[in-house]
């Protein structure tokens, strides 16, 4: 099967001094969820915005290729990109309040992309919008069509966002922190809904999140980003259960849980700023295992082929699996 989204060597820089994304590559296959997880400043949101072509002109984006359903986006002009956005790939943003147009009725905003991209009548577009709203679990879809975003709750707005993104049945859906602004019970419902989208439409989902619990719930595969690079990638369960990069492991250990008086483990220091001259492992300055070998870019790349961009990945005993208590994410 061919990937529907294929990114090769994507870089995003702001001037010479800051490189936010430092050459990342990944594929997303039909019906699959790839989660990009990382902390603020890791470059995860820059990655999603760069793919959608939504970064401001001050950002310098370069890539060997960004292929969506086989079409390379690199070098396309604004008009050509507009024909693909919303049609072949759509985006769901974190803040459903700020990303919906407050002065436009729900129905009008939903129909906009379909009327723009496809030769359909107003009535057909309207029917599709009502169907999708109902499908996402919104009651009285017909009535909601004429409402404004401020009349809906956060969970409902996010359902509207999802329904809107599906209007043209895009093969690729990019969701940037889609549940971060929602209550936990609402989050669960929205994540279930995204799962249904995949089952029903075979959509490939690239989900950006900082929440390892969300990764555990929805991801097929995960890419952990740190300092503008993917430091570890693999099937979600493997990465969460047996992280091989020290950063992934440290991140998992930061999650609070009842430890009966023991302090939480912390990662010392903070994320440094990287530029085009930075080399070696970006986590080395905060890693307890770091030594001179961590500066060797070639060796890091070699190791990355097996999942973790680390010269000394963590190993596990296959015999001692299981045990331990529940984690609260």
């Amino acid at each position, binding site marked *: 099967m061919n990937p529907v989204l294929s990114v090769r060597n994507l870089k995003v820089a702001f001037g010479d001094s800051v490189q936010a994304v430092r050459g990342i590559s990944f594929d997303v296959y039909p019906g699959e969820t790839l989660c990009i997880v990382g*902390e*603020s400043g890791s470059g995860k949101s820059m990655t999603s915005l760069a793919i959608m072509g939504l970064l401001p002109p001050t950002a310098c984006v370069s890539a060997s290729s960004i292929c969506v359903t086989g079409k390379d986006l690199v070098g396309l002009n604004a008009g050509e990109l507009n024909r693909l956005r919303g049609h072949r790939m759509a985006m769901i943003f974190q803040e459903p309040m700020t990303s919906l147009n407050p002065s436009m009725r729900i129905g009008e905003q939903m129909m906009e992309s379909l009327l723009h991209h496809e030769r359909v009548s107003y009535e057909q577009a309207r029917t599709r919008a009502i169907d999708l709203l109902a499908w996402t679990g919104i009651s009285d879809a017909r009535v909601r069509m004429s409402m404004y975003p401020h009349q809906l709750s*956060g969970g409902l707005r996010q359902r509207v966002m999802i329904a809107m993104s599906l209007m043209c049945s895009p093969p690729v859906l990019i969701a940037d922190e889609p549940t971060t602004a929602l*209550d*936990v*019970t*609402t*989050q*669960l419902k929205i994540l279930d809904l995204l799962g249904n989208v995949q089952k029903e439409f075979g959509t490939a989902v690239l989900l950006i999140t*900082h*929440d*390892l*619990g*969300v990764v*555990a*719930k929805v991801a097929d595969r995960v890419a952990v980003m740190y300092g503008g690079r993917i430091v570890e990638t693999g099937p979600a*369960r493997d990465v*969460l*259960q*047996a*992280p091989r990069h020290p950063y992934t492991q*440290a*991140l*998992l250990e*930061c*999650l*609070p*849980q*009842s*430890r009966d008086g023991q*302090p*939480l*483990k*912390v*990662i010392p220091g*903070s994320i440094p700023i990287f530029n085009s001259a930075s080399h070696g492992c970006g986590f080395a300055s905060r890693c307890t295992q770091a030594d001179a070998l961590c500066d060797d870019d070639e060796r890091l790349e070699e190791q990355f082929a097996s999942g973790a961009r680390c010269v000394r990945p*963590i*190993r*596990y*005993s296959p015999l*001692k*699996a*299981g*045990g*331990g*208590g*529940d*984690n*609260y*994410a």
Partner: protein
Amino acid sequence: MPDIVEARGISLSLRAPSLFGGGKSTEILSNVSLSVKSGEVLGIVGESGSGKSTIARVLLGLQPPTAGSVTVDGRNRREATVKELAPLIQPVFQDPFSSLNPSQSIVDIVALPLDLHRPTSTKAKRQFQAVDMLERCGLPSYLSRRLPRELSGGQRQRVAIARALVLQPKIVVFDEPTSALDISVQAQILNLLRELRRDFALTYVFISHNLGVISYLADNVMVMRAGKVVEAGPVKSVLARPTTEYTRALIAAVLRLPNQLPEV
């Protein structure tokens, strides 16, 4: 141990402003009671709109309730001004970006409570105390002349904590203090809160929607929904054996990770 914070039968109704008066009255809190013993951590959980932040505002005296009484360290909230009780009970808010004055250096921000409450001491002494408290909260003194915008989110939250503690209060009310932070930063702040509680013998009222954070920090927990207390008790028993459907649903909505394998 006596109760250091006590609220009895707190109710709060607010009337939506309307052009011709009248307006619809909404009940934000209804008959909420709580008590916290000295040195304890009370966690308050609930979804948005449950009234958990409003009860914090009532305890701090920022919002007078329609009915009910609040006692802080034996003093009735109604009979004291906010300023009188401020040295006893201090807040830390969620957003370290909007809760710090953007035009003041962080040492001035932390010294402000001292300027207001200890005007007789010298300015130099107040600044010294502020720098001292910043260091205690993990901010080195060379940062003390910086503006909030020059600091990271975690550092800013340390400033907010230092400002809350500089008057040496007995009680700190936290409203989602780590929700805006990355998980690695959250871990640092949670550890700091534990240390400070031990070193200064503090009592915390800790509001969060994150059950993991609550189970890590709190002794007792109170679950709120639509302005009412749904369930309350020791955190371990409430999380392990919830008695109400709502608490069970909240716990079920927590996304769990697969257990990690041991290393070799």
